[in-house]
C-alpha cells in the first residue's frame, strides 16, 4: 500500500515536471509569436533549471537562513502532492477518500504562503513589498476560487446517486454520467470566476505584481539564486501543470474514462485551458494591487456567489 502511494507520488511528480516544462515553453513560445518574435527552443525551461542548479547559492547576511532556503522546497513539495492527489482522483475515481477536494485546495495555497515566508525571510525591502502584495492577492483570489469549487459540489449533492460529498472522484464520476459542469449556467459562471482566480494564483499577468521584474527588481524572489531559485522556477512550472488539471477535473469532467480516448480528451481540455491562460496573459497589462483586490472582491466573488446560488436552485 505504501509502495503504491510512493509510486503514484513519483509518477505524478515526474509527469507534472515534464508537463510543466512543456507548458512553460508553450507559454513563452505563444507569447513570442504574439509579439512577432521567434521565441525559445523546446528545451529552454530544462536548460534554465539545469543552469540554475549549477550556480552558487547566495544567502544575504540579513536573511533568516533556514526559512529562506526551506521555503522553495515546501512550495515545490506542496505542488507535487496536489498533483498526486489530482491524478489519483482522475485515474481511479472510485477509490476515493472523502474530502480530497479540500486537501487539494489547501495544498494549492501552500506555494503562495511559502513564497510570502521566503520573501519575508530574505530581509530585503523589495521582497517585503512583493510579499505584502502577494498576501493581499492571496486574500482576494481565494474566496472566488473556493466559491467556484462549491458549484460542482452542489450539483453532485443534488443528484440521487452520490449525495453530499467533497471527493474529487465523485465529481469525476458524476460528470461522466451527467455531463460536464461547464454546460450549465452556474457551471459556466463559476468556470470564468475560477479561471480568473487561477490566473492570479499563478501570478501571471495581469496579476504578476508580486514578482514585478521591471518595478521591484524581481520582487519576492530578488534574493534567491542557484538551486533555491531553480526550485522556485520548478514550483511555478508545477503549478502551471497542476491548476489546469484542477479546473478540468472540477468543470470539464477530468479524465472521463481511463482509456486512451479519455486521455486524449483530458489533453484537449488541458490545452484549451492553457491557451486561455496564455491569451489572457498576452492581452492584458499588469494591474495595481488595489485594482486587483477590488476586482476580485467586488466583481469576481459576487459572480461566484451568484453561481453558487444558481447551482443551489438547480440551474
Amino acid at each position: 500500500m505504501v509502495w503504491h502511494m510512493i509510486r503514484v507520488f513519483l509518477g505524478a511528480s515526474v509527469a507534472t515536471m515534464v508537463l510543466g516544462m512543456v507548458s512553460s515553453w508553450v507559454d513563452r513560445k505563444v507569447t513570442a509569436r504574439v509579439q512577432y518574435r521567434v521565441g525559445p527552443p523546446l528545451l529552454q525551461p530544462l536548460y534554465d533549471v539545469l543552469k540554475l542548479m549549477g550556480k552558487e547559492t547566495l544567502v544575504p547576511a540579513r536573511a533568516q537562513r533556514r526559512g529562506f532556503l526551506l521555503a522553495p522546497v515546501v512550495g515545490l513539495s506542496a505542488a507535487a502532492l496536489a498533483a498526486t492527489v489530482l491524478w489519483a482522483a482522475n485515474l481511479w475515481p472510485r477509490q476515493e477518500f472523502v474530502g480530497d477536494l479540500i486537501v487539494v485546495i489547501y495544498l494549492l495555497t501552500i506555494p503562495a504562503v511559502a513564497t510570502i515566508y521566503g520573501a519575508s525571510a530574505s530581509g530585503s525591502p523589495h521582497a517585503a513589498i512583493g510579499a505584502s502584495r502577494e498576501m493581499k492577492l492571496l486574500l482576494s483570489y481565494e474566496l472566488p476560487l473556493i466559491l467556484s469549487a462549491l458549484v460542482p459540489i452542489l450539483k453532485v449533492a443534488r443528484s440521487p446517486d452520490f449525495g453530499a460529498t467533497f471527493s474529487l472522484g465523485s465529481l469525476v464520476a458524476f460528470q461522466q454520467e451527467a455531463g460536464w459542469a461547464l454546460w450549465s449556467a452556474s457551471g459556466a459562471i463559476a468556470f470564468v470566476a475560477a479561471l480568473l482566480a487561477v490566473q492570479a494564483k499563478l501570478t501571471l499577468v495581469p496579476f504578476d505584481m508580486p514578482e514585478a521584474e521591471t518595478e521591484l527588481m524581481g520582487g519576492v524572489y530578488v534574493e534567491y539564486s542557484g538551486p533555491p531559485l531553480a526550485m522556485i522556477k520548478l514550483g511555478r512550472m508545477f503549478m502551471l501543470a497542476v491548476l489546469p488539471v484542477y479546473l478540468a477535473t472540477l468543470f470539464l469532467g477530468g479524465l472521463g474514462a481511463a482509456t486512451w480516448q479519455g486521455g486524449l480528451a483530458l489533453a484537449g481540455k488541458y490545452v484549451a485551458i492553457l491557451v486561455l491562460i496564455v491569451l489572457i496573459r498576452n492581452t492584458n497589462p499588469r494591474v495595481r494591487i488595489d485594482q486587483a483586490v477590488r476586482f476580485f472582491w467586488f466583481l469576481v466573488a459576487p459572480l461566484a456567489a451568484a453561481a453558487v446560488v444558481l447551482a443551489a436552485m438547480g440551474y
Partner: protein
Amino acid sequence: MGLTMLGLKKSPWVYHVNVGACNNCDIEILELLTPRYDVERFGMVLVGSPRHADALLVTGICTRQAESRLVEVYEQTAKPCVVFCIGSCAMTGGIFRHAYHFSRPVEDVIREADPGAIIAHVPGCPPKPEAMILGAVKALATL
C-alpha cells in the same frame, strides 16, 4: 560541470549595470532586448536582480563613486558568471579617459575583486545590437 556549462551556454540571463554611461549604450542594450533582435531565442532574458544573472552588461566609464557599487553588484552575482564590458567607455574609458571622475577601466575593477573573472569586451560607441550578439556568442563559445 558539463551539464552546468551546457545550461549556462543555452540560458544566459542578463542584468544591466550602468556605472556612469551617457545612456547611448543603454539605449542600444534596450534595443537588443526588443522583439526585433529577439534574444529570447538564445535563452537570454533580462532579469531584475543580479543574483539571478549569468551575464552582467556593464556600460559606462567606472566613476569613482560607482566603483565600490560595481564591485558589490559583481559579488552579488552568483558564480559562474560573465562580465560584458559594453562600449569603449566600459573597456578603456573612451572619450572621458582623462576626466576627473574616471577611476579605472571596468576590467581592472573586476579583476581586483576577482582575479579569475571571465570578462568579455564589446567595442563600439555605441556598439550595435548585432555586435553585442556577436560578442555574447563568442564569449559563450569559449566557456
